[in-house]
């Protein structure tokens, strides 16, 4: 039985908890959070120990792994603590709030035998997974251009510039960390890390201290290039949506979480694609999960973490070193944004 503690029981923490709770290989034995209200509710209804101090939890509990779903500004310290206690770590995205922390944690865990994973959940979406494998097989030839976009209606009214962690870049707030990290990770996963990041722009829409929209251009030594655009004040979207468009020498793919279209210049018999447009829906590539609480990708991502722990497989699909790649890009976006700079 793998014993797990969860640090931070907000929206993501409770969803991870409920998913893992129905996994027979796992027992959630302890929770840490600074909300006594949440802790006392959990304690009343569940068989768990609760702590207002995560340090205490690590000290007292005999755990195998932790889930870190606190505001990102606490990730670094907690993950270091977990490393000292010899624990496997699953941390919500973004991995940390700056590049140095991400670098340090990645090298700390490298070769340690401890499983480490960042919650870039798109890597476990069935459509994006299919595209990953099509691109690896070279189905659309050499990639030339791409576009990765994400839209959400997360922030729907002006803020008061308040003091929460969400209203400062230093603490991991803003659309780049919260939302663009997903779109950037998807580029890393599907296409690879760019060599240069140029022409970034940050816009404010409702937020006072952080950016609400960001766009950027990614350049690669081999000549391919692409753009990223995200907006988290997108009132025209009911649910968060990721959109990816990839143009290659032999075909083009347009995808979101639910479906993809592929245009082939010549037929591909192996995958059943004719020349011209082909449409595949999520229903064509869908995998059920042991439990589906908010989309099977969330279940698949945690199942992967548990599987890696169980079989001692350090080849995690979304390891810290993958999280670090996204942070390298984010650092470049903040470095060279040239217009609409947030002051």
């Amino acid at each position, binding site marked *: 039985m793998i014993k797990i503690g969860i640090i931070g029981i*907000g*929206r993501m923490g*409770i*969803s991870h*908890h*409920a*998913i893992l*709770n*129905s996994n027979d290989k796992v027992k959630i034995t302890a929770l840490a959070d600074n*909300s*006594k*209200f*949440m802790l*006392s*509710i959990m*304690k*009343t*209804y*569940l068989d768990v120990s609760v702590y207002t101090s995560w340090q205490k939890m690590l000290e007292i509990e005999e755990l195998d792994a932790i889930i870190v779903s606190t505001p990102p500004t606490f990730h670094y310290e907690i993950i270091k603590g977990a490393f000292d206690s010899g624990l496997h770590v699953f941390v919500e995205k973004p991995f940390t709030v700056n590049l140095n922390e991400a670098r340090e944690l990645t090298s700390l865990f490298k070769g340690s035998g401890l499983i480490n994973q960042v919650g870039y959940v798109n890597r476990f979406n069935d459509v994006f997974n299919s595209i990953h494998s099509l691109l690896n097989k070279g189905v659309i030839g050499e990639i030339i251009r791409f576009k990765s976009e994400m839209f959400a*209606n*997360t*922030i*729907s009214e002006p803020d008061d510039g308040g003091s929460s962690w*969400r209203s400062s870049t230093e603490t991991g707030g803003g659309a780049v960390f919260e939302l663009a990290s997903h779109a950037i990770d998807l580029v890393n996963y599907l296409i690879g890390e760019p060599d240069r990041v140029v022409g970034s722009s940050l816009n404010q829409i409702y937020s006072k201290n952080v950016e609400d929209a960001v766009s950027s251009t990614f350049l690669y030594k081999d000549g391919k290039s692409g753009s990223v655009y995200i907006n988290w004040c997108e009132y025209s979207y*009911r*649910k968060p*949506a990721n959109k990816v468009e990839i143009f290659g020498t032999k075909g083009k793919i347009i995808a*979101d*979480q*639910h*479906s993809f279209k592929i245009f082939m210049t010549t037929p591909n018999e192996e995958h059943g694609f004719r020349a011209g447009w082909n449409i595949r*829906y*999520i*229903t*064509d590539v*869908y995998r*059920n*999960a*042991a*439990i*589906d*609480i*908010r989309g*099977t990708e969330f*279940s698949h991502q945690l199942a992967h973490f548990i599987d890696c722990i169980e079989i001692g497989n350090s080849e995690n699909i979304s390891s810290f070193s993958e999280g670090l790649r996204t942070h390298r890009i984010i650092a470049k976006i903040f470095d060279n944004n040239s217009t609409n700079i947030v002051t």
Partner: protein
Amino acid sequence: MKKIDKIVFGDNQFFGINHMSQEKAQQQAEKFFDINNIFRVYENVLESGINGIMLNSNDRAREICDYFRENQDKFDAVNFYPSIPYPHKYANMIAEKGILPTINEALFKGNSSRNILSMISRGGSALVTKDAMKLMTMLVDVEMKMFHGLNVKVVFLQNIITDLMLGYGIKEVFVAYSEHIWATYNAAPGFITQNLPLLYKRLKEWGIEDVVICASFNKIGYLMSPDREAYEKIVEENDSEKYQIMAMSTLASGAIPAQEAYEYINKQNIQSVVFGASSKKNIDQTSSLIKL
């Protein structure tokens, strides 16, 4: 338990919800931006003899409920199947503000003299915890306000909440919800789920009966975790006096042609189907294909 309608008309198409295609969802949302287009569809629903309407408690449903009340003569024979809450409203609020402020705003919006934060500071968090189920039923009542005066047959808890509580395995929530729905609305409690086999197993273990379960059910096993076979076995052995099963996503968001989809559904021991459509032709065709 009162028998539920064999055919219930759903509302996803009105609100830009399509699990398979964001593009399709957006097109539909544009079409139904004018609420009169929604009312026109309901006219067609009545004409095709469907007497069950499922409606999620989102902001636009308020206007739709007003319309049903204003045209009560016409909708006299219709049974309503509300589903609560509107999950995205809360998801965004929780992401932006946190769980406690979200509950606070939902319950005490515009009433500054009462709020959960002051309840906690007055009575301590232990008091609130003891009353967590009371808090839950208060949230239910807030969501149900818009349906007042309508003939409510079942009140469904949305799958995001059902499945979260199912994952946690908290029996008290299911018991308290069921009792509250019977007592307050004289309606059957309903649970929407993406995990029928697990929910069914737990409800039996916990001795919770006389509820309606609404779950995805389709020939290709889409949104049927852990697998289609488990679903088929459950309904085959189910006693529908205790648990009535309503199938949703029967076309798997359009992946299965209607004829083929309902040939499969009609063979299952299912008591009801909820489906959505926009055109009169599709409404009539679907209702003629469902033979439970």
